[in-house]
Every structure is written in structure tokens, then in C-alpha cells.
């Protein structure tokens, strides 16, 4: 008797709990919930937080790390890592500044040269990873040093100033008077990344390589080529961030962006992308970046010291990963 009743009720309840469980299988859900809770706390903590001007401000602050995190998402999805993005950002930024200041090149040309350098660095990194089979963490650690050193060499260690006034539009300007230009650029970068990852064969290959590289290779896919392309993309996003930063500061700072690679990795991981590769979503990365931005902005408004903020950020990263990994194991 007991058994029979049990059998009848089981399918229904298990289907419902299954649906519920599946919802929570998405690590991004945790980021989203965390984000909402954080927004709520911040709006209670400070009445300036939930204002249009402050939220726009948050978005603008997030844009540089957000764009870096897009490239980082690609790299982490294939099971790699790119520690060089902060340095590459500084190098390409100072190169852009140098081109405009020392050679009086028009901004658009200077920007293209900067991005070309980002592409070149990504290409070298990718080739060393794909062909020489040196672990990504080593190659990009070395590239971090090389790019940083190159930037310092180029500027002699001093910031470059005297940029043409109209260049500031990129970092400080607004579209339609309300949307900051960096936010618009970030949106475009995320949109392109979304299309690549979800609708192009290249994106499919990225997930597949992160899942099982040998199976993809035996499927006739040019794995090495796509690996290199992924590092090139990371180089491009780093140089776009470099461009925004230089325009924002109106000077080429060879020391800029130290530690940004770690913020970018944190955003990606907070967004639910598996550090082992193969799983994750670009939307999660956006959430991860926003979460970190809201955190630091809200705490600033509440007058919490930046030292405390760093400790809190660390705790939140560990906490988020702990909970999401706990709930996503099957």
C-alpha cells in the first residue's frame, strides 16, 4: 500500500524538483541572484546609489575590465589563461598615445596601429601555446613582463601627455547626451562576442576545444588555428581597453592596468565560466563584471575603505565559486 502511493506521487514531484534543480544548474543564476541582492543592499546602504547618474557611472567604470573580460572569456573557454592583458593594455595604449603625440598621426591611424600591436602579441602568444606547446600560464606570464617592459622602454618610464583634445571623446564623451562612449563600445564588444560564441562555427569550436581537444582535432578542425585566434581576440580586447583608458586619462601611462588581468579573470569566473574550459557564457561574464563594479561603487558610496573592499572582493569570489560549484555537481 505504502509503496503504491509512493510510486504514484513520485513522478510529479521529481519532475518539478528536477526543473528547479536544472534552473540552479546554471552557475550564472547564482551571479544573477548575487547581483540582485547586492543591488538591494547597496540601495539601502546609500541613497545616491540607485540614481541614473550613479548607475551610468558604474557602467563606465566597468567598461575597461568588462572588455578585457570578453577576451579572457574566450581564452578561459578553450582551457587557457591570459595573464598579459593588463600589460598589453598599457603597452598598446601608450603606443597609441606615442603615435599621436610624437608623430602627429591622426587618432584613427594611431588606434589601428595600437590594435595591430595587440593582434601581433596575441598571435605570438597563441603560436607559442599552440605550436611550441608551452603552457598558457607560462607564455602569458612572460608576455606580461615583456609587454610591461616594452611600454616602459618606449616611454622611458614617464607618462606621455599632450594628446589631441578631440581624442578624449572615446573615454569621456557621451552618445545622445546620456550613454558614455566606453559603455557603448563595451556593449558592441559583448554583442560581437555573443554572436561569435553562439552562432558561428568558431564559437562552437571554442567550446569543443575546451571540452575535448583531441576529439575536435580528429574531427578535422584546425585546432591550432583557432587557439591562436582566441589569443588574438584577447590581444584585440586588451588594446581596445587600452584605447579607452588613454582617452579617459588623456595620457599614455606605461604603468597602467597592473592587476587588471586578475580583475578580468575574476569577472569571468564569477560569471560562471569553468576555469577548466568548455563551459560558460558571455552573458555571465557581463554579470560578473557588473557585480564587481557595483560592489566597489556601492562600498565607495558607503565610505568603506578600499582596503576593506579588496578583502571583501576576495571573499565574494571564493564564496560565489564555492556555492556555484557545490550546486552544479551532478
Amino acid at each position, binding site marked *: 500500500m505504502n509503496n503504491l502511493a509512493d510510486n504514484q506521487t513520485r513522478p510529479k514531484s521529481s519532475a518539478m524538483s*528536477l526543473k528547479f534543480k*536544472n534552473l540552479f544548474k546554471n552557475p550564472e543564476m547564482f551571479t544573477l541572484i548575487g547581483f540582485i541582492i547586492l543591488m538591494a543592499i547597496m540601495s539601502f546602504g546609500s541613497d545616491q546609489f540607485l540614481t541614473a547618474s550613479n548607475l551610468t557611472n558604474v557602467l563606465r567604470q566597468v567598461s575597461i575590465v568588462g572588455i578585457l573580460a570578453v577576451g579572457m572569456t574566450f581564452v578561459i573557454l578553450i582551457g587557457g589563461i591570459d595573464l598579459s592583458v593588463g600589460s598589453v593594455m598599457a603597452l598598446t595604449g601608450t603606443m597609441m598615445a606615442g603615435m599621436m603625440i610624437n608623430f602627429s598621426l591622426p587618432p584613427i591611424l594611431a588606434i589601428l596601429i595600437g590594435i595591430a600591436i595587440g593582434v601581433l602579441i596575441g598571435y605570438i602568444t597563441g603560436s607559442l601555446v599552440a605550436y611550441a606547446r608551452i603552457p598558457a600560464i607560462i607564455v602569458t606570464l612572460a608576455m606580461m613582463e615583456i609587454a610591461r617592459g616594452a611600454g616602459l622602454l618606449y616611454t622611458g618610464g614617464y607618462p606621455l601627455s599632450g594628446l589631441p583634445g578631440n581624442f578624449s571623446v572615446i573615454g569621456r564623451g557621451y552618445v545622445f547626451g546620456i550613454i558614455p562612449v566606453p559603455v557603448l563600445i563595451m556593449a558592441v564588444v559583448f554583442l560581437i562576442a555573443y*554572436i561569435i560564441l553562439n552562432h558561428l*562555427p568558431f564559437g562552437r569550436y571554442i567550446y569543443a576545444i575546451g571540452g575535448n581537444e583531441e*576529439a575536435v582535432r*580528429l*574531427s578535422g578542425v*584546425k585546432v591550432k588555428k583557432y587557439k591562436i585566434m582566441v589569443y588574438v581576440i584577447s590581444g584585440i580586447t586588451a588594446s581596445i581597453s587600452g584605447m579607452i583608458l588613454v582617452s579617459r586619462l588623456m595620457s599614455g601611462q606605461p604603468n597602467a592596468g597592473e592587476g587588471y588581468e586578475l580583475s578580468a579573470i575574476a569577472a569571468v569566473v564569477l560569471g560562471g565560466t569553468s576555469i577548466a574550459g568548455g563551459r560558460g557564457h558571455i552573458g555571465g561574464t557581463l554579470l560578473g563584471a557588473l557585480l564587481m563594479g557595483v560592489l566597489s561603487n556601492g562600498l565607495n558610496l558607503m565610505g568603506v575603505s578600499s582596503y576593506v573592499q579588496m578583502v571583501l572582493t576576495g571573499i565574494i569570489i571564493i564564496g560565489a565559486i564555492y556555492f556555484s560549484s557545490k550546486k552544479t555537481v551532478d
Partner: protein
Amino acid sequence: MSETILEVKNIRKEFPGVVALNDVSFKIKRGEVHALVGENGAGKSTLMKLLSGVYTPTSGEIIYEGKKVEFNDPKDAQLKGISIIHQEFSLIPHLNGIENIFLGRELKKWSTVLDKRLMKSKAIDLLDQLNAKIDPTHLVSRLSVANQQFIEIAKAISIETKVLIFDEPTASLTGKDIDKLFELIARLKAQGVTVIYISHHLDEISQICDSLTCLRDGEWIDTKKVSEVTKQDIIKMMVGREVINAFPEKLKVQNSEENWLLNVKKLSNNHIKNISFHLNKGEILGIAGVVGAGRTETVRALIGADPTKEKEVYINDKRVSINSPTQALEHGISLIPESRKTQGLVLGMTVAKNITLPNLKVLQSKMRLIDRKKELVIVNNSIKDLRIKTPSANQQVKFLSGGNQQKVVLAKWLNTDCKVLIFDEPTRGIDIGAKEEIYKIMRDLTKKGISIIMISSELPEILGMSDRVLVMYKGEIKAELAGEEATQEKVMYYATGGVDNE
């Protein structure tokens, strides 16, 4: 002491979207060798994982030594006396035999320092007890598969084990090693250990098992004494129908130079020496040999997956250069690899995404985006044609059974337009029903003019499917046998190092 050592009662296990086991109940007697049979996906492995503490049941009870038990994890089950020898061993390759045997339960002096001498002598004792002549100080990665299995068994019996589960233990072993394993199982039985033995090989079951339990589609079918059933009975229990003829009829294939599709000359690298052979249009060419004879190495070298020292490949009499799997695919040559999990599939991706992986270019719209609708049509056709059992095209491949995973790998390549398909152990670890289906698919492909190279360690399969057979030994082709010439005895003779006396 009661006669029953282990009993499962109304066991049910669910995974997302799948019921792996439903209301399974049966008893295992103390000291017997109990076979567990069933097609792939029948729920055998899931059941064993429940018994060894890897999974916990959704509902139902496990009664062990007369008491209801719940295992928290595999270690808990081990300490209570139930160990499992997995199909894929759980040894650590960079540690030696001793370190592996005592991993997690190291013996210590003064409870701090490792007592290496004691562990070594105990390891040697254990291996002696198994009658295995292995030096336990060697790194595990340098031992043969068979010897690795012995280390694994030694590890299991180093704790007091009452029930030892073998999951497809002979899958990666060859003749002599299998005999050794059977001797060992007999010895364990004599010592009073209860053995649960999972296998697809019915010969093995009648050879060493006392009773058997059959599962089908997650349900218990029957538990019988082995002496009371015939092989036909077992097959009937497994598939629910009679098996009449496993191999589809062969076609007449012309073996002459005009009909050559592929001609390979002087293929050489570190593993193989001067391999030359040809492949006719619409032919199935079998490559036989023992494990390690260089069969997989040959085909990997052919498609450019591994580097070669020398290599000449002609397709339709035209010299082509194939230096990567990509180029092989461009020339219409595809390899369906030996190991589905490590080489054939991206386990975390969906059925659909795996199937279209080699063929995404065809699915691109004008905007170069992937046409999802077209993709779904192709994938659903494959699922229907190959009868892949999956809740949907969007199920992750890792949740499918072995036979269905293999069909997904097949579907990958059937959707590309290839002329030469290379199958490396196409039916390894697959049940009889799925085997027959795969044989039929292969034969149908040759009717469409596709040529097949098939590597297999199963003699009946080699002889039943191949139009010609190449026999390899130690990296060389030792014989080419066609038609009547190809007999079990001849193939075995050359495969084990026999030479021509002509």
C-alpha cells in the same frame, strides 16, 4: 552466517531526464561469482556504482550482511568490504605500484614517517598471493594494461574485501592475460570472496560464473544459475528477442588494381615499419593483431594524426599529401577512434553539437552563422536513422549509454561525405543488439561505395565482416588473407608472431 551476502531491494536511480534503474531487486550468495549481464545502457554500471558507494540510490535499499547499509562514498564501501575494479583504472600513473596500492592508507612508522620497507614487503606478498610476477617498484605508467589491472586488484584486496566487483575486466586484455585473470578470480573465490562480474562476453560467463542476473533498460529481468541456461537463453534475456545471424551478408568486391581507391606505401614511424597496403572501392578491410601490434598507430599515421618518417598515399592513383586530420578529411578519409570518451566525443556538449562538429561549414547561412534549424533537421534524421536512444538532440552526450555514444560518433562521420571510413574497434564495450546494428550500418555503407578499414581485436568480427584481412605483429604487416584463406587459426598464427614457411 546467512547464505546471502548482498541484496538489493526495489532500487531506483534517476539522472536528469533518465531513469537508469527502476525497481531492481535480487540477491547475491556468499562466495559465488555472480555475473551481471545486459546491453549497454541496461543499468549495470549504475547498479555497481550504487553498490560501491559512487552513487546513492534515489530510492530502495541495499542489504549487506543482513543489515541495511548506506554508503557515503567509495571509501566507506571499501572499508565495509566492497571494492570495485573499474573499466578505466583509477591508478595514478606517476606513482609506483606500492604507492598506488597503499594510496590513502599508507603504513607508517611511529605514526608519522612512511614505512616504505613494510609497504614494499606487503605489496610483494599481495602480488604473490595473486600469482602475479610484477615488480611493484615500477611506475604504473610503465606497466602493461594487464599488470596495471593486477595492481588495481592488489589494491582492492589489501583491505579486507568481501565483495569484489569487476566492471568489464577483459575489455583491454588479450588471451593469456585473460586466462591469468580467470585463475585469479578462481583463487579469490576459494578464499571466500564474493565476485560480481560484469561482461559482454558470454563465453567468459559460462567459464567462470556460478549465477547471473540480467538487466534490460534499467529493469531486472531474471536471476539464474549459469548451469541452467544456454548462451541463446542469455542473449534472449538481454535483448528480448532471438539473435539469428549477427553478420550481414558479404558483397562481392573486386580485388584488382583498377578497383583500388586507396594505396598506402612505406608508412613508417617509431611504432610501425614499412606498412604498405591498398583498399578497394566498397571493401571492408580488416586489420587484426594483438594489442600493441601497431594497428591504431598505422591508421593514425595514415590520417596524419601522428607524425611519420616516410609515407606515400595515393587516392585513385594520384599522390596526395595528408599531414593532419583536417587534410585527411578534405580527401574524404575519416577515423572513428578507438576511445569514444577521450577521442571521439566532447562529453559535455549536446548530441546535436557533437554530430555536426566535423561538418559545421555546410550549416552556415549567408551571414556565416550556424543555421540552427537545418542543424536540428540533420541531427534528428541521424537520431532516427541510427536509432540513437536519447531524450532529445540537446541531451549532453555524457548521459548516453556506450552503444548510443558510439552511434553519435558514427553519425558525426556519416554526415560528412567521406570515401574512406576507418573504424578502430567499432564495437568495443557494446552490447550485442547495438553491435548488430553497427555491422548492418557498416555493410550498408559499402553498398553506397564507401570503403572501410576496420581494426578489431575480436576474431569473429574480423572474419564475419572483412573482405580481406591484414594481420599485424610488432609494427609490421605479417599477412594478407582473403576469402577462404582467412580462418581463426591462420589469423591467430600470424598475429602471435608466426612466420610464413612458404
